[in-house]
């Protein structure tokens, strides 16, 4: 009974996600049809090929989705505690920056140790950056939305602007020095997978993707199987109720924001250690904001976030294919926005349907 109920609503959510995506694509298609010389069919074929056309595209899609899954998790986790973390962007930058610096400043460490240090520091930095608004919310009740936004803008100046300018090598490009080999996250091309499937060269998908999946696993365990999760969700639904239940509301709000920030920090870290191999101004590319979309589409549920992350990775990667085919890639951004709208709106119909179902029972 209980089981089947959950199943039902999960399925409904899934169904709605598909409907939302479909409608969004349809509208995007109409836009293409009427505003560009390309036809929506060829545009979407290009989109598909760009994302899944061949092994390389698939791997690139996974590569693109890695940070999105992580920022998505970050936003989703905060959501569960009733907090809206628009700050994933800044937390990602801070985390990536710290990891990048740790990546080149330590040397002569064994790889395992070095990588671990970088990841821990990166997550810690992101966690602190998320923890600050958490603390302000918990102790002073300051709206976390505003503060996370402000901290995004601050993080940008500190890392991308000031940080890089201070640390960049003589005449080098807009990035901190390259990290030591020992700090690099292995790319799939440098693993046994390469011999198994002889992967195409230059594909960048790296072990960070695995970390993303593990993170999702851990988060769902934390949320639904532990007392920490019980408390965080309770605070999210009804703080005064939770307080009555002996739950330390402030502590949990801070904790939720800290963990959320750490996840975003991890996103930045894997981008630096795995993708770029240094901290670059290029990291400031809205991954945090897309993370919000991912979390919403994934219904703030770790499993859903993984799927949504991969979908958005595919859209971004496939978007390039579309651009090559002469269709402005921004269509993809528009589609992403539409997907969110429809998901959000469809929730109402979901409620409506469930009400109806219940009424049938009552009659």
């Amino acid at each position, binding site marked *: 009974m209980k089981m089947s109920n959950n199943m039902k609503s999960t399925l409904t959510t899934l169904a709605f996600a598909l409907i939302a995506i479909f409608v969004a694509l349809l509208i995007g298609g109409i836009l293409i049809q009427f505003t560009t010389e390309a036809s929506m069919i060829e545009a979407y074929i290009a989109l598909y090929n760009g994302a899944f056309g061949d092994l390389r595209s698939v791997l690139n899609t996974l590569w693109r989705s890695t940070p999105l899954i992580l920022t998505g998790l970050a936003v989703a986790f905060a959501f569960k505690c009733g907090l809206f973390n628009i700050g994933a962007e800044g937390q990602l930058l801070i985390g990536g920056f710290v990891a990048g610096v740790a990546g080149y400043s330590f040397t002569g460490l064994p790889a395992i140790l070095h990588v671990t240090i970088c990841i821990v520091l990166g997550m810690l930095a992101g966690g602190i950056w998320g923890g600050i608004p958490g603390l302000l919310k918990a102790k002073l009740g300051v709206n976390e939305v505003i503060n996370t936004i402000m901290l995004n803008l601050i993080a940008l100046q500190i890392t991308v602007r000031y940080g890089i300018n201070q640390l960049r090598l003589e005449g080098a490009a807009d990035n901190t020095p390259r990290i030591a080999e020992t700090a690099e996250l292995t790319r799939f091309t440098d693993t046994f997978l390469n011999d198994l499937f002889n992967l195409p060269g230059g594909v960048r998908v790296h072990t960070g993707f695995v970390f993303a999946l593990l993170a999702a696993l851990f988060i769902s365990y934390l949320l639904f199987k532990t007392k920490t999760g019980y408390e965080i969700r309770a605070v999210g639904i009804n703080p005064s*109720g939770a307080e009555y239940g002996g739950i330390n509301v402030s502590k949990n709000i801070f904790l939720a924001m800290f963990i959320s920030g750490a996840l975003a920090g991890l996103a930045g870290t894997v981008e630096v250690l795995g993708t770029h191999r240094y901290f670059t101004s290029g990291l400031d590319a809205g991954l945090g904001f897309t993370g919000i979309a991912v979390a919403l589409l994934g219904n703030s549920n770790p499993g859903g976030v993984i799927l949504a992350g991969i979908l958005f990775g595919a859209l971004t990667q496939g978007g390039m294919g579309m651009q090559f085919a002469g269709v402005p890639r921004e269509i993809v951004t528009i589609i992403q926005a539409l997907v969110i709208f429809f998901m959000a709106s469809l929730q109402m119909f979901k409620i409506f349907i469930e009400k109806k179902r219940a009424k049938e029972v009552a009659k």
Partner: protein
Amino acid sequence: MSSENQYSNSDEIILKMEGITKVFPGVKANDNVNLEVKKGEIHALVGENGAGKSTLMNILYGLYQPEEGEIFYDGNKVSLDGPMSSINLGIGMVHQHFMLVEPLTVTENIMLGSEPITGAFFTDDKNAARKVKDISDRYGLKVDPNATIENIPVGMQQRVEIIKILYRGADLLIFDEPTAVLTPQEIEELFEIFKALKEQGKTIIFITHKLKEVKAISDRITVLRQGKTTGTVETESVSEEDIAKLMVGRSVLLQVEKEKSKPKNVVLNVENLTYKDDRGVDILKGISFDIKEGEILGFAGVEGNGQSELVEILTGLKKSTSGKVTLKNEDVTNASPMQFKEWKVGHIPEDRHKRGLILDYNLAENMVMGYHNKPPFSKPFYMNANAINAHADKLIPEFDVRTPGSHVKARSLSGGNQQKVIIAREFSQKPDLLIASQPTRGVDIGAIEFIHRRIIEQRDAGKAVMVVSAELHEVMSLSDRIAVIYDGQIIDIVDAGSVNEFQLGAMMTGSTPQKEDSDNENE
């Protein structure tokens, strides 16, 4: 009496609701309900929690639309698709949870939606204020037109609600549990207002769980049970017991039965506790008392005299400004809620929706809240779902919670049953001190009987119990001793037997008692 019945003698039917059916997710709130109200009568609507009273009235007021049924007003069929259509017909409603906008002034709240205009488009506050004054004079509804709602007492807020509907020219007035939050004096005043309204030819429908009130003021009674009408009767023709029987379907004890208490050593001791709120206002001005094993100390008092704060301090939800709280000879002043729970203090909060429950958690999850971090519910690295569900499945029958199962969300239960969930949870932890705040608010007599029995059992098991209630009758029938609290101070602590409702009522409004037995002064 007869003078009051003059209008209802003229058997003119003003309202007729026929075959009303309203379905909510999972419940048929109203199932083919019929209601007939005569012009100028006071018509009581009674029934258990979830019987469908509020729903029926909300339909009459146009807030909900019924699936089936017809409504006739003044003889002609009407369709009520929104409050406006009801208002225009002359139907007004005072809701169970007041519909007042707190930061706005009394006048603003009253004129809201039908504001007088001056100049091209400015609100004409003067004009509105004048109208308000007229009405309050005519019906003796004392209010301060310029006060903001959040700063006036509940009683006045209710009068504002009444003026609000009279301002819109209502002839039929609906009251949903108007007395739930009032003192006996305020209730008296309210009934005076009822009579005044009746004199003016207004018709009144009012919902209550208190049968004495029904007998006192109503002309006729309609009883609902589980969404169905069980009949309408003339008030003279029935006794309280009869009504109770109609409501519950069985006979219920309206009086609590308990032996004399046998107090032992002190469990809780409070020494001049004070509390300032964040605006620096003195809420508690030096409260001192103690509670012994095996006794029930009741707190009588008008809401907003500090009892809520007192309870929250004694359960760790608020921090006192000064004073000392000792539990079993251990200083527990300003400990955390979790610590109080560990010291086996059970707490039934006054507001089940705000405090007592996570409405969107299911019953099983709610029934471990506060104990979720202890074995067997919590293991080192995970929560033990089996233990949690088993716990709920054991308590639900034991405490007679009416629910499809332990997996449904607390939200979908009726108030009475939500209350039972909380009681089940707190009792299941065998507290040494039980602090029950408004334990039966908005709960029907069946459930009240049940809850009261449980509380007495606690006492007889040698536990200390503290009961806070705006419900004088409840305080008197449960308590062994009664502390009367007024304006943040304890006016006096008296033996339950030694005072009657009106002496208490008087003390609750601050006037020091003129009592002979001075022996329990020294407590």
